[in-house]
């Protein structure tokens, strides 16, 4: 009997022994070939649904007014739809947002940026210590971070149990007075994603850790958009100051988990993995499909577990909800862009800080709320009503602000619509806000030719030294 039990636990034959933190999926893959092979398919960028894609669509080209919204912030240079996990490192290298750091220590971004991109991160954190890891430049770790998101981010190598490898999530739970160790397995099937698919900010004021760009999730007072807004207001945080309107702005980054938690699926206990990593049958073996991507590429395995509608009905369910939310968010982003420019005009005409105070708060709050919905690429389906509710409130706030602006402008002698740039052209708008994209692209091209290949080469050489222990067959 004992024998059979062991057999049950090791129905598979481990080929290699995984020691410590092993960042290379290919090594794990020797033991778990099905999961590995399906995970490798996150390289595939061909799937397209109505609004989303694995194909790395250029969001700024699609909706150029975002360039105005993010003027003065790196997102105005470059922002794309996400693609599969396999691309996480490449896409960081490629993005204009990190500049073109030709030598270590160069460039605008801190090491913290790597946190959600690589299995090398838990390795580095354990080697350097968490605070030290957060205290460098992105370019300092170019040769160290070479493996995209993978097994080691979510799994305990000994037991294969799901595990949390990112301190920010653990700390966020602590801040809320919760213990993540108490999470059920079903919750873990979402929490592994919540390590990355969440809104974050860099705390540079942490006592004794002032040098670090300390990755923090602003969940202390709750997960709703209002709770987080109030949290940021209370600590008077701003990601940047908008050069046109001078508003102290917030950037919302992919609050997928937070919005999802407001949905009926979450209330009914459905986890991210239920839809994005459904069970799959291959050669009589059932396993979790690790090809994480749009569930719409795979409705039969994902939605059908719980819903017996026609596939086309489930697709239109998703599209209808996305359309209804995007109708409002598409509208409000244009209004916010206008408000920035109207505020700029007001400053130009001599408005005072005092006159602008409420207006700037209005712009900050409206854009924060809009971004919260839009930055969550799945949100319009994950939590359609909550998304729509937030968009309603953003619309109200920004229009109230624009009424104040129009009164202020009138009092400054400008009682008519403010002239706007052409909102339909990304390049024109980038020039309008003073970016020299051709120059940035030229630098990037040099960086990609000269620096990145070296980073990868050195990194691989370092790894090659680490030995892989094979397990002798019984």
């Amino acid at each position, binding site marked *: 009997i004992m024998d059979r039990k062991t057999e049950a636990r090791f129905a598979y034959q481990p080929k290699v022994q995984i020691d410590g933190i092993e960042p290379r999926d290919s090594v794990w893959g020797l033991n778990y070939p099905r999961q590995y092979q399906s995970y490798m398919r996150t390289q595939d960028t061909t799937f397209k649904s109505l609004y989303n894609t694995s194909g790395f669509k250029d969001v700024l080209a699609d909706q150029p007014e975002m360039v105005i919204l993010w003027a003065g912030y790196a997102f105005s240079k470059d922002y794309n739809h996400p693609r599969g996990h396999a691309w996480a490192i490449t896409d960081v290298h490629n993005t204009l947002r990190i500049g073109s750091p030709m030598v270590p220590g160069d460039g605008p971004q801190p090491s913290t940026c790597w946190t959600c991109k690589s299995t090398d991160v838990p390795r580095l954190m354990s080697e350097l210590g968490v605070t030290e890891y957060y205290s460098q430049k992105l370019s300092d770790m170019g040769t160290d971070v070479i493996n995209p998101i993978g097994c080691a981010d979510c799994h305990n190598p000994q037991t294969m149990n799901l595990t949390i490898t990112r301190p920010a999530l653990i700390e966020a739970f602590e801040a809320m007075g919760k213990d993540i160790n108490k999470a*059920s*397995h*079903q919750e873990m*099937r979402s929490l592994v994603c919540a390590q990355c698919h969440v809104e974050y900010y860099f705390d540079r004021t942490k006592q004794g850790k002032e040098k670090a760009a300390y990755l923090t999730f602003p969940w202390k007072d709750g997960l709703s958009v209002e709770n987080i807004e109030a949290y940021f207001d209370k600590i008077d945080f701003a990601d940047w100051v908008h050069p046109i309107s001078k508003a102290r702005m917030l950037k919302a980054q992919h609050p997928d988990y937070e919005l999802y938690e407001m949905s009926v699926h979450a209330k009914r*206990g459905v986890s991210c*993995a*239920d839809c994005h990593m459904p*069970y799959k049958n291959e050669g009589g073996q059932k396993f979790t499909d690790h090809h994480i991507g749009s569930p719409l590429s795979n409705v039969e395995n994902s939605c*059908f*577990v*719980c819903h*017996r509608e026609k596939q086309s009905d489930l697709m239109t369910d998703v599209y209808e909800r996305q359309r209804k939310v995007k109708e409002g968010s598409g509208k409000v982003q244009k209004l916010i862009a206008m408000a920035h420019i109207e505020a700029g005009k007001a400053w130009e005409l001599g408005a005072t800080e005092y006159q602008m105070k409420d207006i700037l708060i209005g712009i900050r709050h409206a854009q924060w709320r809009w971004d919260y919905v839009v930055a969550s690429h799945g949100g319009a389906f994950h939590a359609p009503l909550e998304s729509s509710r937030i968009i309603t409130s953003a619309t109200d706030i920004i229009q109230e602000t624009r009424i104040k602006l129009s009164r202020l402008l009138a009092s400054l002698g400008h009682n008519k619509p403010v002239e706007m740039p052409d909102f339909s052209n990304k390049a024109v708008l980038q020039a309008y806000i003073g970016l020299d994209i051709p120059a940035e692209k030229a630098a990037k091209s040099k960086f990609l030719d000269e620096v990145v290949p070296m980073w990868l080469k050195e990194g691989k050489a370092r790894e090659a030294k680490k030995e892989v222990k094979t397990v002798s067959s019984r």
Partner: protein
Amino acid sequence: MGKRQKIKRKLFQYNLIPPHKWRPAATVLVAAIFGIGIYLIRLSNATSYLSDDPQACVNCHIMTPQYITWTRSSHREVAHCNDCHVPHDNIANKYFFKAKDGLYHASIFTLRAEPQVIRALEPSIQVIQSNCIRCHESQVTDARLAGFIDNHVGHRTDRICWECHREVPHGKVKSLSSVGHQIEPIKAHAPADLEIIPKWLKESMNTSK
């Protein structure tokens, strides 16, 4: 379709084609039976049994409680009578079971020998059970859903599903007198000219007064 072939094959299989010398007599007999048969078929809407239309079953008032409880159940949009009560492992078996079951029901019904309380019999229990599993396989075996329901794995194997899911889909109380009036127009009983708009209103609207 191959329906006719299938019947023929079945008839042969069970030696139901008479030997040569009996054929003339048999032909007359068969013709007579056929005549009455057609009449009966029309009267009782037996053709509808070949379909999956739930209304087929309600031809017998005796089925009314089951029919209307089903139309008020969560399975209304997703499973018709035959999805549960007829085997779905292969098509031949489906029609064979249907024929057997139908003949049995029909005889009992015409003889007025139906029991006061109709209950699913052993063979049909097996059919139903396997149909529950057919549709819900992924749900009841999916390890990921085990998290939702304590002990479902254990419990589902040692008894029939509706021992627990008693309301699926007919509910607990199922006698004829328990369900009162069935007002959904059953095709078999409804006049051919059944209309939703009452006559007076149609006339009034037509004369456009």
